[in-house]
């Protein structure tokens, strides 16, 4: 099986499924990984929604590009945590899936995804429909073997322009080869949107701390208007930019943009608040 269903798979068992309507699942973050960014928790919720959507239309289509109206970050998770995942499907057909979802640890909400949308593309363009069907049966039954995720090294990022407190731009080098490409996706490797967002948040955090100009660290509290417009292929150079949009006593809002060869491939907004931990 190699890295398929392990290098970038974050649902190990579906514990409850109401066909086309809702699901609950779990994923155990292996203790050996150094960290597990919030964006990967969001990915886990999205993957659970994808299983519900794909099974709804008998694996003819799968949601690939993503759109999230709002993501609320409540707290970080740690290696060893068991993510309790939940999704409620608002709508699902051959064209798209619309859903909201959450992840909890020990009953406490760590992330919420509100009004997400995934356009459906042919499963066969990305993966083997038969392999997906078989894995879905395993997930809904005994579950897959846990502990196979080995972590992901952040892609190298080099700052190319910086106006302190106003904007920062960087080149993000997407690796040409990485284990997660074998899982995302075997027939058509695509740089995961959630890894792009993780890099963008890291860049924006630098800016948010400059805007505040105090020692209290800023943490992402909310992300809105996430929209992936094009796929990013292995080896591509992505220019990512974070620009100050607004700032008040409660929060700092930063606009995010990612482009490849001058064409915008993703946009989002992120809101930072003073960290409590």
């Amino acid at each position, binding site marked *: 099986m190699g890295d398929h269903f392990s290098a970038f798979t974050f649902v190990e068992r579906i514990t409850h499924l109401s066909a086309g309507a809702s699901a609950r699942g779990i994923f155990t973050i292996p203790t050996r990984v150094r960290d597990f960014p919030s964006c990967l928790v969001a990915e886990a919720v999205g993957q659970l929604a994808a299983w519900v959507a794909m099974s709804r239309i008998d694996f003819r289509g799968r949601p690939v590009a993503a759109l999230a109206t709002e993501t609320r970050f409540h707290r970080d998770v740690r290696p060893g945590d068991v993510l309790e995942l939940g999704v409620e499907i608002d709508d699902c057909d051959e064209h*798209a899936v619309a859903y909201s979802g959450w992840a909890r640890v020990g009953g406490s909400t760590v992330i919420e995804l509100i009004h997400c949308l995934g356009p459906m593309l042919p499963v066969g363009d990305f993966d083997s429909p038969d392999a997906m069907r078989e894995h879905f049966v395993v997930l809904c039954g005994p579950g897959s073997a846990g502990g196979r995720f080995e972590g992901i090294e952040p892609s190298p990022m080099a700052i190319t322009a910086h106006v302190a407190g106003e904007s920062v731009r960087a080149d993000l080098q997407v690796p040409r080869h990485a284990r997660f490409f074998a899982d995302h996706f075997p027939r058509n490797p695509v740089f995961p949107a959630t890894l792009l967002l993780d890099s963008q948040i890291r860049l924006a955090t630098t800016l948010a701390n400059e805007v505040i100009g105090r020692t209290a660290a800023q943490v992402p509290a909310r992300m809105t208007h996430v*929209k992936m417009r094009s796929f990013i292929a292995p080896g591509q150079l992505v220019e990512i930019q974070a620009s100050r949009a607004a700032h008040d006593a409660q929060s700092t809002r930063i606009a995010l943009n990612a482009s490849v060869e001058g064409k915008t491939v993703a946009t989002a907004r992120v809101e930072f608040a003073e960290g409590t931990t």
Partner: protein
Amino acid sequence: MAVYPKVAETMADALGCDVADVKLDVSLIEGLDAESIDFLDMVFRLERAFKIKIPRGKIVENARGDLPESEFEQKGIVTEKGMAQLRAYLSEIPAERFKTPMKVAEIPRLFTPETFCKLVVRAQHEARAAA
């Protein structure tokens, strides 16, 4: 059109532009840089905002009306009959924007906020009729 202010506000939020830019007759693709993902986003946002159901991926199909597909288009090009049907369906679009020959894939380039206002009104009527 009574629904226009709310449609414009919803579209501005989806496209990340100022609501003042969402003029009733602006081309969503050429004037506001909308892409296919934006159309999907707008449809879902309008559904939530107006509590209606808009059939996805069917705007072009609806435009075809009762005309069979083979009479509406041939080899991806809208036929003369199809153009007449399209002009009638998209009556809000000025005649000069209907280029001939027109590819089926180019039809969304005609769409304006008014097109979506009409979709909303049609969906509201259908919901009322079904109630």
